[in-house]
């Protein structure tokens, strides 16, 4: 085994704090996590954790530190941890957002940071909810290409303008932040929810798709787009910056112009 040689010192003099020269500041964080374990108690409780975190850390890093070093029973979902998979949507200080995209330094660290499961879906354990009702609505709008024409020999062509038409709604990662921040969905969970409408929008306005009418008919339901109250909670919650309320409004317009 050979000892690794130390990297030669840089010949360029960097002032402290530039280019990683300075040390990353650390601070203490007080995390209040909503705990629920039906095998122990039907009551959900708050658990407090104090951890020392770096200025570059996110809420997810704090949860990791808690789970790996303090209490291994803390349960939450996360996969990629970089804002792409959409697994770790949770309510942080009352706002629905991705734990992996929320920097601790952007929150008020003088007060406890509350972390709760997303609202409106049945909690299974701690921060994990049953996403099945959410995905059921998603499936119901047929989120796949339906094309009745002849199979093209090459790719299905589309102009960049036609692609631009639904570009915003292709960004959805199905994290459920929008649907679980919608007050209409909270009431009884019957509303299709912003995420399903966004994913319907993605195909309704796709020039290659032929099932737009069917999707509009599905969303003309009494639990469909007409239950939207344009409170903009979804647009605010979306970690991908999708203009969800605008997409819902466009679907409403499409149904109207088809019927009237």
């Amino acid at each position, binding site marked *: 085994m050979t000892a690794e040689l130390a990297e030669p010192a840089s010949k360029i003099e960097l002032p402290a704090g530039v280019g990683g020269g300075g040390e990353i500041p650390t601070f203490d964080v007080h995390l209040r996590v909503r705990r629920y374990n039906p095998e122990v108690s039907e009551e959900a409780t708050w658990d407090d954790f104090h951890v020392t975190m770096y200025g570059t850390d996110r809420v997810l890093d704090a949860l990791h530190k808690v789970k790996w070093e303090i209490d291994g029973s803390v349960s939450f979902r996360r996969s990629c941890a970089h804002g792409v998979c959409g697994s770790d949507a949770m309510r942080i200080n009352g706002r629905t957002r991705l734990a992996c995209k929320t920097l601790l330094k952007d929150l008020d660290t003088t007060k406890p940071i509350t972390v709760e499961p997303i609202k409106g879906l049945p909690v299974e354990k701690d921060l994990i909810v049953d996403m*099945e009702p959410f995905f*059921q609505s998603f499936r119901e709008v047929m989120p796949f290409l339906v094309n009745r024409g002849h199979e093209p020999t090459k790719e299905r062509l589309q102009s960049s303008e036609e692609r631009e038409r639904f570009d915003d709604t292709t960004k959805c990662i199905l994290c459920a932040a929008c649907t679980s921040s919608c007050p209409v969905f909270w009431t009884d969970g019957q509303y299709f929810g912003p995420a399903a409408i966004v994913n319907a929008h993605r195909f309704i306005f796709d020039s290659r798709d032929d099932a737009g009418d069917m999707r509009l008919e599905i969303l003309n339901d*009494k639990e*469909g787009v007409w239950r939207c109250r344009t409170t903009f909670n979804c647009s605010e919650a979306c970690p991908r910056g999708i203009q969800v309320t605008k997409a819902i409004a466009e679907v*409403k317009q499409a149904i*109207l112009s088809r019927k009237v």
Partner: protein
Amino acid sequence: MTATIESPRSGRVSSNYRRSGASKGNFEMLAWLFMRLSGVVLVVLIFGHLFVNLMLGDGIHAIDFGFVAGKWADPFWQVWDLAMLWLAMLHGTNGVRTIINDYAEKNSTRMALKVVLYAATTVIIVLGTMVIFTFNPCPMVDGIPLPGGFCPA
């Protein structure tokens, strides 16, 4: 020996999230459209009403029984007030219906609240319409005008 492991929760949706069949018809769409259109018309009707009653002529000081009687003698104001009554009542009722749908969690609660709402709406619309069309500024009993009436001299 083989054990069968159930597939993990595929497509199992808890019953209170299941939608009870697709709804037929365009009622919700028409209700949505009505809210927007009646809203626009009501802005004109209400501000027209306020302007005529409070600003024109002697303004607010001219309002008395005779002023109202005079307006309702004119078919134009009868239609104006009728449109305002119906649109405002239906607009408001639909708004409250929406609020009930959003805030009541059980269908039975929804039903009970909506029965009260629709009953109140019906009574007010019917009464209001009757008043506008059967309004008599000079009620007579046995050829003698009742006090408080507004009879042409």
